[in-house]
């Protein structure tokens, strides 16, 4: 049972990624126009022909489909049409680590805000503290990250001059504050909601009552007995939340001029740079699918009650 689940879950990854590739590939190739004919001064027909031949666009579509897949599996996503001197892989190499670092910091911030908020809400159930925590989390869910980012720029940068108004300097510079907090708010709110309802369930169980009855300190009951078990269901949303953080970086990177992959993706769409779109979608899709797979497979290991 356990084995078949793992195998089935891993096998599902392949049709998913293949579907992602096939859909994106054919959509991008069926999309009329390109970076060449969109400019004010169109290139001469002969030059366009030559460019097409250079990029292999004159071959039959299915050949391009197979050839690109073969290269993409090896990490070669082809040339960029807009930035002639760089390949998609080059662009990804410089920009993706930035996005990953930003996402990691944002996840950390989200956990540091979300978990305490949820725990306090559950422990002080139906008091003003609980209502405040619920209100904060529902506002967090309803406010897009780009609004948060621009408000933070307005307050922290323009009014208080505490941080610069944009840019990227690595994770230990004050520039990280605005994008990380803006990106963290939504996942923090989701984590807070899940933690709260899960804690409420656990606090009602017999083993928590037993722990209290034998005279344990409240802190020990909450942390060692309740929280440990309450966090299990919260882990299931980690995958979803991670996907949100990855795609949420599109917005935050655009607002705060962070040179991450989200910003390149948005630029490549307006510039109709199809290989970059294709490569970015494949890369992000793979990362998110693999993360989801890991969460799904880890979950039964963390919670022995769940069989596969």
């Amino acid at each position: 049972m356990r084995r078949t689940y793992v195998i089935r879950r891993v096998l599902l990854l392949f049709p998913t990624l293949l579907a992602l590739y096939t859909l994106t590939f054919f959509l991008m190739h069926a999309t009329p126009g390109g970076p060449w004919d969109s400019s004010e001064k169109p290139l001469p027909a002969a030059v366009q022909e030559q460019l097409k031949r250079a990029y292999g666009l004159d071959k039959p579509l299915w050949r391009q489909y197979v050839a690109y897949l073969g290269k993409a599996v090896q990490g070669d996503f082809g040339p960029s049409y807009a930035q002639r001197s760089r390949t998609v892989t080059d662009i990804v190499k410089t920009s993706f680590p930035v996005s990953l670092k930003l996402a990691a910091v944002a996840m950390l911030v989200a956990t540091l805000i979300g978990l305490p908020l949820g725990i306090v809400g559950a422990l002080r159930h139906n008091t003003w503290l609980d209502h405040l925590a619920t209100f904060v989390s529902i506002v967090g869910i309803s406010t897009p990250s780009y609004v948060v980012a621009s408000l933070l720029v307005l307050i922290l940068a323009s009014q208080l001059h505490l941080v610069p108004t944009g840019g990227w300097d690595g994770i230990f510079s004050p520039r990280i504050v605005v994008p990380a907090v803006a990106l963290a708010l939504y996942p923090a709110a989701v984590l807070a909601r899940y933690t709260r309802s899960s804690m409420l369930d656990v606090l009602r169980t017999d083993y928590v009552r037993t722990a209290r009855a034998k005279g344990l300190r409240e802190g020990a009951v909450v942390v060692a007995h309740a929280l440990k078990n309450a966090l299990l269901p919260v882990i299931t949303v980690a995958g979803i939340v991670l996907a949100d953080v990855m795609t949420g970086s599109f917005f935050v990177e655009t607002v705060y001029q962070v040179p991450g992959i989200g910003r390149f993706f948005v630029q490549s769409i307006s510039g109709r740079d199809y290989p970059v779109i294709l490569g970015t979608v494949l890369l992000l899709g793979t990362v998110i699918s693999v993360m989801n797979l890991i969460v799904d497979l880890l979950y039964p290991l963390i919670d022995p009650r769940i069989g596969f």
Partner: protein
Amino acid sequence: MAQTALPAAPATLGQEPRAKPAKSLWSDAWRRLRRSRPAFVSALLIASLAVLAIVHPLVTEHGYAEQNYDVITQPPSREHLLGTDQLGRDILSRLIFGARISLAVGLTVQTVILLIGVPAGLVAGFYGGKIDMLLMRTVDVLYSLPSLLFVIVIMTFLRAKLQASQGGITAAIGALDERTGGLIGVFIGLGLISWLTVARLVRAQTMALKQKEFVEAARSLGATDRETMLRHLLPNTVAVIVVTATLGIPLAILYEAGISFLGLGATPPMPSWGLMISEAIPNLRAYPYMLVSPALALSATVLAFNFLGDGLRDALDPWMRR
């Protein structure tokens, strides 16, 4: 933006006494919904926003695209209650017209979802076997795709295709797309990905219900598959559908605003709230009020739909309440 519905915020009220048998599900639910203040206030807010959006030309003196270079970037005043933007357009007028877009996106996408998701879930759950297998694997695959990327790719394709087409139905849609400010692609893209949650939930509900005695009774009285699904199973999944659809609306609104914010959705001068926010950012320091009104409108609308969805869930599903 997660597709999965979040768990219901536990209601603060105690357990209701059992409803009298004469009361229908709906009157009972209505009574409970009215008692939940956030949900009721939210419903009122949404209703007034919808009314304002519909009667837009009657309540504003200025058109949403009307530029007046004498009054650019004016702070709120008597003439322009929320001020004017960098092209001298009245922000209030744009805001109200933008409500049309947000509400239309929410409603259209939900309609598409209901038209695809509900039948898919019903059929998969009812017949099981190969159909179920096929439909649910499709759902699994689509579910694991990063939805924002997927919508953007579909939209990019549709837009270029519609703009390039000459004659025929695609050209007609292209003309419509131009008139709606390039939003057709957003509608279709969002519709294609958002039916998954409903399909899953309806399938689960159908599978649980088809074992029940009342379904068996209907079958033994000679009900056809169609009748069983439409008359007996579907009505019992309505609660799930209503709640999922309501909670899906704010998601769709956020997607549209986000895509327009990135400059990939609505085309100027269409006043999508997302586009208004992005236009406010370069002028943030000097004219912060340009950001505040669309941002507040967007958050408040999304908040209202979330509250309403939570309230509906509590009202329609007494067993889920704590």
